């Protein structure tokens, strides 16, 4: 059915994806749609993404963001995606709430850095400008840019991601019914 819909006349949807402060688990879950990947490549093409290794994104239709915002680079990447994408999606618990990395929010970031770099190894906290500077707290992405959709889960299941993407691509209101939102 989906093959039928993807006639050559249909312009492919351009998608960018990124993992900010996440574990790549959400991207793995995207790959978990298994053989439907073949259908997906008929429907979409990828801009900046770990899949393509393109470093900066251009104008695209959908940006999928895994992970929260933990450092200055995350902010820049996120803003670039927002500026280029028509629709921006928060994928997974980290992007939506900060998730596991936000566990550090009740600690002082300075203490964390000195503990890791000085107290343990006797070294110094690296000050190379190449390294992205840490924010004092990890934030969900909707505290930094406007977000259009949230797909919950840690990670959302491959089925949920597939359902969401195909709804979006075919112009339906994306909707995840209860079984896809159950995690227990």
């Amino acid at each position: 059915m989906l093959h039928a819909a993807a006639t050559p006349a249909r312009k492919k949807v351009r998608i960018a994806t990124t993992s900010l402060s996440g574990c790549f688990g959400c991207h793995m879950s995207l790959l978990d749609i298994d053989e439907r990947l073949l259908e997906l490549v008929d429907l979409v093409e990828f801009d900046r993404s770990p899949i393509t290794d393109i470093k900066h994104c251009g104008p695209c239709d959908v940006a999928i963001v895994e992970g929260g915002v933990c450092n200055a680079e995350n902010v820049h990447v996120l803003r670039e995606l927002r500026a280029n994408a028509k629709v921006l999606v928060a994928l997974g618990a980290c992007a939506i709430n900060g998730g596991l990395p936000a566990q550090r929010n009740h600690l002082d970031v300075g203490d964390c850095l000195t503990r890791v770099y000085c107290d343990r190894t006797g070294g110094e906290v690296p000050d190379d400008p190449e390294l992205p500077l840490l924010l004092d707290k990890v934030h969900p992405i909707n505290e930094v840019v406007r977000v259009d959709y949230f797909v919950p889960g840690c990670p959302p299941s491959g089925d949920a991601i597939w359902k969401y993407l195909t709804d979006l691509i075919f112009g339906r209101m994306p909707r995840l019914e209860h079984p896809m939102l159950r995690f227990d």
Partner: protein
Amino acid sequence: MTTTQTGLGTYLERILKRHGRDSGRLVQILRDVQAEFGRVSAEAMAILAERLSLPIGDVESTRDFYSFLTSEPTGTYRILFSDNITDRMLGNQAIFDHMARRLGVSRGVVSADGLASLDYTSCTGMCDQGPAILVNGMAITSMTLRRADQICELVRSRVPVAEWPNEFFRVDHNIRRADMLLGTDFTPGSALRAAVAMGREAYLAEVKRSNIRGRGGAGFTTGVKWEAARNARGDARYVVCNADEGEPGTFKDRVLMQFYPERVFEGMALAAYVVGAKLGLVYLRGEYLYLKAPLEEKLSELRAARLLGDSILGVDGFDFDIEIHMGAGAYICGEETALIESLEGKPGRPRIRPPFPVSFGYRGQPTVVNNVETLCKATEIALHGGAWYEGFGTKQSTGTKILSVSGDVERPGIYEYPFGVRISQVLDDAGAKNPKAVQISGAAGQCLTTREFGRRIAFEDVPTAGAFMVFADHRDMFEVARNFAHFFQHESCGFCTPCRVGTRIQAGIMDKIAAGHGTQYEMNELQHLREVMRTASHCGLGQTAGGAIADTIAKFREDYEKRLARKDFEPAFDLDAALARAREITGRDDADSRMLSDA
């Protein structure tokens, strides 16, 4: 063991003895430890855990749950300002700042000499005589700058709180309109005698006939509840009086406990008579500590008069006594299953229902939980019968209801009306000045505007647990809703994610809008969050936590919109400031270590 530990052990032993070494009384034990030592230290917890045969984690999680219990020392004088919106409207923040300056302390930090600590706390139930504070747990009303100065003097001279002027601790009843309950004399024992004369079955039939519904908020039919508890299988049965009264703006139970305690206790005895309970428990909110001693005294009087104890009124097997348990600063403990958890010495987290308390309540046994006012009403039914009672109020809401009126009115206080009274009448009677809104039933309730003032207080129209906060037309309803948002964030018990995270995000968005960084996006988010919390939260707290915001957005949108930034979106925090700590620790100041918030 070091000598100090031995000393600590001896003190703790005394406290443990007082509570019969009952681990179920852990909250009471920890309260006493806190009162004695100004904190519950790790050492104290270790000793308690050992002597009560509890895992230390249980002791710790109970301690950490309640805001009146602390791991670190508080000041010798712990001063907490009630921070309900009504206290704010009476200027509590200026008085707080004044005291902080005079005592040289900042919020939440103990002064260097350990003498004083100052903080805010949720509504303490003195809305008609605020701004109110608690000093070492004792309520002080009608705060002024002058009174603040006097208190600072007393603190500096280290005068014990027990020796402070009596007038500080005066709590008035402010009864402005008395009806059936507040306006009628009551002879202790009369209701019990009437019920015993009728017999159990007949009295229960009268309660059912009266169609009385609970006054604590949910409005469950009392007769049905009692019958279910009586019929449930169990080894023992309990009657619990819910005097937690934490809903911001509610203070009628305080007045009943202070001025009508015989009614409350007799109502409990009536419930016990019907269901066959031997023990009753009053769960009194920690903020009402000042009532504890007089209530204990009242219980002794009733025992002496043989209205409590064994074979009450000479009825063989009608043995019933009452204990008072104190809360420790947690609004959620008003929810009946959280309350029962707290009575059992645990953190006050709502249980999964069913089973309901009537079949599986306190210590797993059938338990009736009723609001203070409901129990008082039970005495009226014993005295006058269900048919008489049913003649008052409306079809689905029989009898009278006590309202706690506060805010922009000339005569704040307690008003008792038959159910069905119009909002406008209450406003007139209380002398409301240009009201633009009324928040009914507290932060968890609903916000009504002038167009709705013709509506009636009744379960079939505007249900309420009793709060009635009035806002005049110069008030900013956004700030009202923001105050409630912070209340819910603070009071969420943290058990379920929609509420724990939702209330926090909600308060964060309200602060963002208050700071002028909100956009239409945040307005949509608030409504979206409300739906998530309403539909996915485990208990009533989370389910209602977004209500006041949704109401004020629908009815006072201009109070929000005037604050919105004219942009598509603004970040929730200052991005550059968020990098400051890492800049400091790395010593960097390159271009990449800087960021603009609206780039």
